[in-house]
């Protein structure tokens, strides 16, 4: 877990964990421009480069929003749309490449959701109002979620009811931090520390008990080059 790190501001630096030899630094505007021009000229190696830089991120975003079903196809479709849009010249400011990809991915998510909602509705209409089976109930995923909930229960059983209340106010009832600190007579540092400890404990127990990574990560390992 990363929660034990000291992060007080809006942004933080952790170059140590990112500075591996195979990790390229973020290209500046001119490098994005060169990459975009190479894609526009049909350079296959440029497309591979774009794919290696963003396929994991696209995959992560799609999986988070839509779940792991048919993820490979969705990533492929989305990547194709990005490349075609670049080749058509839709990206007028190449230095805004990341914002452009995000916009395309978000539109894709909306389109996937629209399609799913409408096909579900058509199926429901055919069945005259009887609901179709809930395809969200993936047994393997549910088992993992239940395991994680079990681990969390252990974490919560081990802390005081006051600490539980503080965390519940924040994570369940979404009360603002300032309100919680004021009403529970807590400093901001104590509040952060409590959250960090709970996360660290959850991560520690999770590593001991679950010899697995989340489904999303499993799906991501299938991606070539990541």
């Amino acid at each position: 877990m990363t929660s034990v790190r000291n992060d007080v501001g809006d942004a933080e630096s952790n170059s140590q964990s990112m500075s591996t030899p195979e990790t390229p630094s973020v290209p500046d505007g001119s490098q994005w421009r060169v990459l975009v021009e190479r894609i526009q000229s049909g350079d296959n190696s440029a497309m591979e480069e774009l794919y290696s830089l963003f396929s994991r991120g696209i995959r992560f975003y799609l999986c988070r929003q839509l779940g792991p079903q048919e993820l490979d196809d969705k990533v492929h479709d989305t990547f194709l749309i990005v490349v075609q849009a670049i080749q058509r010249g839709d990206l007028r400011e190449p230095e805004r490449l990341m914002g452009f990809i995000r916009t395309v991915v978000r539109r894709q998510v909306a389109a996937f959701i629209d399609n799913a909602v409408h096909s579900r509705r058509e199926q429901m209409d055919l069945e005259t109002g009887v609901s179709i089976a809930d395809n969200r109930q993936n047994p393997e995923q549910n088992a993992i979620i239940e395991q994680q909930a079990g681990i969390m229960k252990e974490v919560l059983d081990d802390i005081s009811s006051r600490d539980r209340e503080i965390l519940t106010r924040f994570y369940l009832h979404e009360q603002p931090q300032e309100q919680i600190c004021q009403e529970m007579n807590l400093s901001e540092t104590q509040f952060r520390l409590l959250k960090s400890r709970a996360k660290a404990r959850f991560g520690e127990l999770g590593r001991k008990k679950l010899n697995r990574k989340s489904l999303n990560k499993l799906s991501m390992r299938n991606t070539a080059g990541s």
Partner: protein
Amino acid sequence: MGIILEPHVSEDTLERYAMGLLPPPEAARLEEHLLGCHLCQDRLQETDDFIQAFRIAAPRVAEEERLRPQTKPGEWLRAALSGLFAWRPLPVAGALAAIALAVFLAMPDSQRIHPVQTRVLDLRAIRSDASAIARVSDQLTLRLDLEGLQPESGYRVEIAASNGRIVWSGEGKLEGPMLAVSPGTFDEPGFYWVRIVNARQQGSLLREYALEIRN
């Protein structure tokens, strides 16, 4: 491979994003960062896992805690009855106490104690997880993810039972990128569909979310 994208996203910002509380401009910046940063993708995944597990486990722990003193044999009942019947002639109090105890013991376990608790549940369109589970005793507020829709007024929310019968409908209230509704408690366990419909366009269906209510 990823890209070095420093500075990385702070823990607070990741948490607020995971909870759907980050304003759209900040969320956009974060999502751009996430597209290229493997480290922050992993950190967000861990944050998602933590929050999801917390939202399932915390109500269970709270329920256990509430049940603990009450399930000591007859204690709560004795306490309640002693106050209630203190002024009555003993035989009447005794008879009423016996009736109350008989009714209590005859109830199925699931019906004995339904501590009502407030619960906020986030529903995300299509996303496959089992987090959209609540209990009949929960006083529910649902926050519907508006991913892909314009956050604007004019959305109506309907909740349909699995047989298609509409059991609740009402106006949604915009809370950042989410639409919040408070349908209260559900009478029956089962599967429900929570739908966002466009009130201006003859109730056309815009989004649909699955919700399971358990005993």
